[in-house]
């Protein structure tokens, strides 16, 4: 020891003065000694060590957003590894918001749920929203700012943008253009208005490819103002849909509408005194709503207008010359004044909307079943005209800078505008987008956009309620929000989206308690008091009816039932989701009626060349029963060239035929057959029930007269049909009830299940072989004539049979029964004989013929539910009744030493269902919802006669047809 070192030392530091200790430390921890000798940096080292250990355990390698976000159910202090947190946010579909609760595991959003407090969700979501979490992790998303296709930086872009703006600023902003979709975000609208105030000659163009163009135009034509229409299906006894797919995903508020409509149907099924609603649908292209209709009037899309007009005529002055359909319809409507709804379809021309508004007013529905408010969108304008103006200005060289906040006009603008050709004349073109898409390819600048799960923003729902979009994760690829771009334009490039949104709402709620208001708004996912108040519109101005009858072959344009307008094309879950109408995956097709197909000599799988207004596109034919004759339906969303690995080069682009004049449909199409044998990949090959009765239906009247109709004598198997005593199921006895009266067949459950249970995507070739993996399929059966059949939808998950046939034949006991009645699959034990599937009469088992799960794409791991195993090759899998959710709830209840409450366990399919058709619970509890439902007389089990004793049972479908029309 050296002289000046202390004899007695209280700490290592003191001792560290010694040479020996130094030598020891030097030896033991080379390069660490300075840290030990420098008290500050040593402490920092220890701090970092401690923190990194904590972080390694707590948050793995995910990045947290730096602003505070507020969990919905549990406090941030309760952030416990392995326990998910739920945050409220909202998603916009064509600008219209739906409130969500997003499940986050260790800072990683994994599952989308609906926000029960949000008026447009009430806890439900649709397939597209379910799948949006996959888009977040899509490795094909654009990841860097690019300039002329080369990697660049945000800073360089800001410089370039500011220069362009300043150049335009010399001319009051002339030559500077903004292009957005429909904007409902109050913050963004305010930012844009701010910018336009500074640059009055700059222009803001809006175009949403599948926006509500004719709804807006119809409201303006009827009332002089773009009123927003909200329907109250919970109050409607008679509903007439004029080609309105209000139950389908394309109409804003649809989730709420489904809920309201099915609530009424369910109530009527449970209680004979509650009148069931009656739905009439006039349509050309079969929709989900058409599938629910008691009476479907099949007509060409262009004939709906005439039909609507004759209905209005008949209502005004009944005449014996009207068709019996229209007469019966008018009588029914007249009998239900104030309790009827006439809905015009978003894709019908404005005249139909005017007629619908007029009929609703005439019947006194306004203010009762049909409610009007101010428009939801900011600055509603005719978007088609707005885009046309932009293109005209580009052509004349007036546009010097074009900044596109999202969108993909090169792909989805009407073909007659020649958008791309004119775009090339713009000097500076910048594009913000999730993907470096077709438009980005032609822009000088492309900036990756933040996904809604990474971004701060706000948006309005179908009824005007505003909600905050909060991020669950920091942008994975450094994406930017439109708010940040607008900030850059107004010289506030450093201002974050969070501050922008928060400051905007501070101006809206300037009170002292803003912090509290903000917290509550974030927590609830809804800003209180923002729902629009009801407006009383003026009397409807009569429509100028077009008398000319449309002739020639009609072509109808529609967003795709699964991938919509194409912005979600690169989502493999949606690509592989069987489209409700024809169970087709990975493609779009030209839908044609059986009669027309015969007339034109084409059949399913023939590739035809459609010519419309001088443009030509090749597409394969699909014969769709229930489709209008002399009409073709083509869907958007396909034929992408720069969508990503998933969606590139599949299907054909229907946008290539769309014109500004025929935005939703047009006539005068022609086609020629080019080749045949196009391979489609569908998940269901047999379209009818083949004289069997998996799907049982009756009218409400028949049900009341013969409540046992769904349980004929010959299906009964007495419980004594066994030598062995039945298992007791003492603790719990799980069961599920699926109400076919409520189910609309939307497939949201399929995708919710896929997201919850890490179900892999197999690709078109495998689907074509019949190897799709969805644990929950929705069967679709046709009944009646080939031209106009009745459509029935039946979701089929695992039945969890008490006498499970699969368990009997498994040689290694890889599928076994739990004491609570679950039919469980032990993946680890499965050797893959597939015998269980052969012996399953419901064919709900799915097999990993190859290694379907993606073990290579790192980014996709984020979307996986950590509570569910990712299956390997050669293993059977199937619906587990979301056993992970059952166990989570059981553990919670045990910890709190209380019995499980009914409704505490919600399966993924049940949670997502907008119609609340699926109910799960404990059959040992006679008061549970599921027990009560199963006591209904219309309860039946699929193939019960096999004595499999299924735990999943169905409530038979009840319909409410009009006796007048039924007779005819």
């Amino acid at each position, binding site marked *: 020891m050296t002289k000046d070192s202390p004899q007695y030392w209280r700490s290592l530091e003191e001792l560290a003065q010694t040479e020996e200790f130094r030598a020891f430390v030097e030896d033991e921890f080379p390069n660490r000694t300075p840290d030990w000798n420098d008290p500050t940096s040593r402490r920092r080292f220890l701090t970092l060590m401690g923190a990194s250990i904590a972080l390694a355990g707590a948050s793995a390698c995910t990045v947290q957003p730096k602003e505070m976000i507020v969990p919905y159910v549990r406090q941030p202090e309760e952030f416990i590894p392995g326990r998910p947190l739920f945050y409220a946010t909202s998603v916009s579909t064509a600008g219209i918001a739906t409130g969500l609760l997003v499940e986050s595991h260790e800072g990683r959003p994994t599952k989308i749920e609906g926000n029960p407090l949000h008026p447009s969700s009430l806890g439900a979501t649709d397939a597209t929203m379910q799948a949006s979490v996959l888009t977040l992790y899509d490795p094909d998303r654009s990841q860097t700012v690019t300039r002329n296709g080369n990697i660049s930086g945000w800073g360089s872009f800001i410089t370039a943008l500011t220069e362009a703006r300043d150049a335009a600023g010399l001319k009051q902003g002339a030559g500077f253009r903004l292009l957005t979709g429909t904007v409902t975000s109050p913050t963004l609208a305010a930012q844009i208005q701010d910018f336009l105030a500074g640059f009055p000659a700059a222009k803001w163009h809006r175009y949403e490819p599948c926006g509500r163009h004719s709804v807006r135009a119809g409201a303006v034509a009827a009332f002089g103002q773009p009123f927003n229409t909200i329907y109250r299906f919970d109050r409607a006894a008679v509903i007439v849909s004029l080609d309105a797919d209000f139950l389908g995903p394309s109409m804003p508020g649809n989730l709420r509408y489904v809920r309201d409509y099915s609530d009424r149907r369910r109530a009527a099924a449970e209680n004979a005194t509650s009148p069931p609603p009656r739905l009439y649908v006039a349509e050309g292209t079969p929709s989900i709503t058409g599938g629910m209709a008691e009476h479907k009037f099949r007509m060409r899309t262009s004939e709906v207008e005439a039909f609507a007009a004759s209905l209005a005529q008949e209502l005004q002055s009944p005449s014996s010359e009207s068709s019996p359909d229209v007469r019966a319809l008018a009588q029914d409507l007249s009998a239900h004044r104030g309790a009827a709804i006439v809905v015009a379809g978003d894709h019908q021309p404005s005249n139909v909307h005017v007629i619908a508004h007029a009929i609703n007013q005439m019947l006194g529905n306004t203010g009762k079943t049909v409610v009007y408010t101010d428009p939801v969108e900011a600055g509603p304008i005719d978007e088609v005209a707005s885009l046309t103006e932009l293109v005209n200005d580009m052509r004349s060289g007036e546009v010097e800078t074009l900044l596109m906040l999202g969108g993909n006009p090169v792909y989805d603008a009407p073909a007659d505008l020649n958008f791309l050709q004119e775009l090339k004349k713009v000097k500076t073109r910048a594009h913000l987008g999730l993907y470096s898409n077709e438009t980005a390819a032609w822009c000088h600048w492309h900036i990756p956009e933040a996904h809604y799960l990474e971004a701060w923003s706000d948006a309005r729902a179908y009824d005007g309620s505003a909600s905050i979009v909060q991020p669950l994760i920091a942008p994975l690829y450094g994406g930017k929000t439109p708010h940040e771009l607008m900030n850059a334009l107004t010289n506030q490039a450093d201002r974050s989206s969070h501050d922008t949104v928060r400051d905007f709402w501070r101006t809206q709620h300037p009170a002292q308690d803003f912090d509290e208001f903000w917290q509550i708004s974030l927590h609830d996912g809804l800003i209180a008091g923002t729902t629009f108040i009801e407006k009383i519109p003026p009397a409807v101005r009569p429509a100028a009816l077009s008398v000319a009858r449309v002739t020639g072959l009609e072509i109808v344009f529609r967003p795709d039932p699964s991938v919509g307008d194409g912005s979600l094309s690169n989502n493999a879950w949606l690509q592989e989701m069987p489209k409700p109408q024809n169970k087709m995956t990975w493609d779009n097709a030209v839908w044609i009626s059986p009669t027309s197909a015969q007339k034109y000599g084409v059949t399913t799988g023939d590739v035809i060349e459609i010519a419309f207004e001088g443009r030509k596109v090749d597409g394969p034919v699909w014969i769709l029963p229930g489709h209008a004759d002399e009409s073709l339906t083509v869907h958007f969303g396909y034929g992408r060239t720069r969508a990503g690995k998933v969606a590139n080069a599949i299907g054909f682009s229907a946008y290539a035929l769309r014109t500004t004049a025929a935005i939703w449909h047009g006539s005068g199409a022609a086609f020629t057959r080019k080749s045949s044998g196009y391979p489609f990949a569908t998940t269901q090959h047999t379209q009818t029930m083949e004289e069997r009765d998996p799907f049982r239906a009756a009218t409400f009247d028949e049900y009341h007269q013969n409540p046992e109709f769904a349980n004929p004598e010959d299906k009964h198997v007495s419980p004594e049909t066994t030598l062995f005593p039945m298992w007791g199921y003492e603790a719990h006895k799980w069961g599920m009830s699926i109400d076919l009266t409520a189910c609309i067949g939307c497939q949201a459950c399929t995708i919710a299940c896929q997201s919850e249970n890490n179900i892999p995507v197999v690709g078109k070739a495998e689907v074509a072989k019949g190897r799709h993996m969805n644990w929950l399929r929705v069967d679709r059966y046709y009944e009646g004539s080939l031209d106009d059949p009745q459509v029935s939808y039946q979701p089929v998950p695992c039945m969890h049979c008490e006498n499970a046939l699969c368990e009997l034949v498994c040689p290694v006991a890889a599928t076994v029964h739990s004491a609570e009645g679950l039919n469980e699959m032990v993946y680890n034990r499965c050797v893959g004989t597939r015998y269980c599937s052969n012996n399953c009469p419901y064919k709900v088992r799915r097999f990993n013929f190859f290694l379907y799960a993606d073990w290579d794409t790192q980014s996709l791991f984020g979307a996986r539910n950590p509570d569910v195993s990712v299956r390997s090759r050669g293993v*059977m899998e199937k619906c587990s009744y979301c056993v992970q959710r059952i166990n989570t709830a059981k553990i919670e209840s045990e910890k709190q030493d209380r019995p499980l409450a009914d409704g505490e366990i919600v399966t993924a399919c049940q949670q997502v269902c907008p119609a609340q058709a699926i109910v799960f619970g404990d059959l040992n509890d006679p008061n549970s919802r599921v027990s009560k439902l199963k006591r209904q007389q219309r309860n039946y089990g699929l193939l019960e006669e096999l004595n499999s004793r299924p735990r999943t049972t169905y409530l038979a479908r009840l319909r409410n047809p009009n006796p007048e029309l039924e007779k005819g």
Partner: protein
Amino acid sequence: MKPEDQESTNVATLDPGPDKIIGPGHDYGTVTDEISGVVLRPFLKTPPQMFIGFAIAFILVNLLMVAVTWLFVRGVGVWGITMPVAWGFAIVNFVWWIGIGHAGTLISAILLLLKQDWRTSINRFAEAMTLFAVACAGMFPVLHLGRPWLAYWLLPYPNTMWLWPQPRSPLIWDVFAVSTYATVSIIFWFTGLIPDLATMRDKAGNATTRKIFGVLALGWRGSAKHWARYQKAYLLLAGLSTPLVISVHSVVSFDFAVAILPGWHTTIFPPYFVAGAIYSGFAMVLTLAIPVRRWYHLEDLITMRHIECMSKVMLGTGLIVAYGYAMEAFMAWYSGGQFERYAFVNRMWEGGYWWTYWILILCNIAIPQLLWSRRVRMSIPAVFVIALIVNVGMWLERFVIVVTSLTRDFVPSSWGTYYPTIWDWSTYLGTIGVFLCLMFLFIRGLPAISIFEMREVVHHNAESEHAHRD
């Protein structure tokens, strides 16, 4: 007389006709020489047909190697199986091969117990065929697993997790039935070979051959004690094998009969599968024996009587199978069960595979009726062609049962189709290659006809002739 020189044999290798099971003029020596001559002749004196046949079979074996490698690399998805048809060629082939094996056991065990002396010259051959067929069959249950490397989980081996196979599954019964069958068959076959291996040892020209046969002969000296013990053991093994003829294919049929699938769930399956197995087995023995008999000039040992007897067995079992088909169809109709009825409508008319059913009826029922005619039975080409047709028919029967039933079960929404892929075919053809390869090697390397039993036949003939003269 040199054994390898056919020309020097003073016994004409002429077919003695339908009454005799051995040609005229044979004594112990000529029988021994003729049979061992096949094995002991120089390599290059092997008939050229054998080389060509082996070359083709060997190419098929290599095809199997490629197919199996690809299968293991990628997974069972390389085959055409899908949902709902989760079993395809692999199971069809498994049942077909197992069925083919049956003739061997039946000939060696049951016919031995029934003292059918015509079995003697074909039993060794048929037993070998059984073994090789079971070997081919045994591959499929492992190959068809999703995770073949875990196939041993089907065996009840002690483990720390106390996990055992699930005994209610017919697949577990299969494991036991087939493994027992394979074990007993191989012991039976080898036991039968021992005296002949000693003969081969004694006749072998060079030291290596002598050593190999010497080891295999297990020290057989042909003493009376040996023979006494041997006869007893052989009879016991025959007794042990006899129930296996019935049990194995009954258990295999349970794979289907126990399942609930319409078209599978049929109580007649066990006897009908057994009859079918013997049917196809005899067809396969004929398919193999006819060319070998010709290539090695064994017409005097495998005589027309053998051919005719086997034809008769084929005809008889074929009729049982026909009865099975009729009963299946009748019960489907008589049960009134909607699903059961539809399964048959689908099998015969509606589904995409109706033609397989009718080809099967043609192959298994219609054409073999020609065997009622003695003229057909006595015509080698006719019997050969019919045997081939029955082989095809029996394969189709399994295809119809396995695949067609699976394509259309209970819920129409899940109905599907099955298309075999190139890998399905490669695996199937590959196992045929394995089978033929082993057969060729066996014929070339071991006495394909039981020498000592043929000597017994000679002895009996001499005795009866002697008695006749007295």
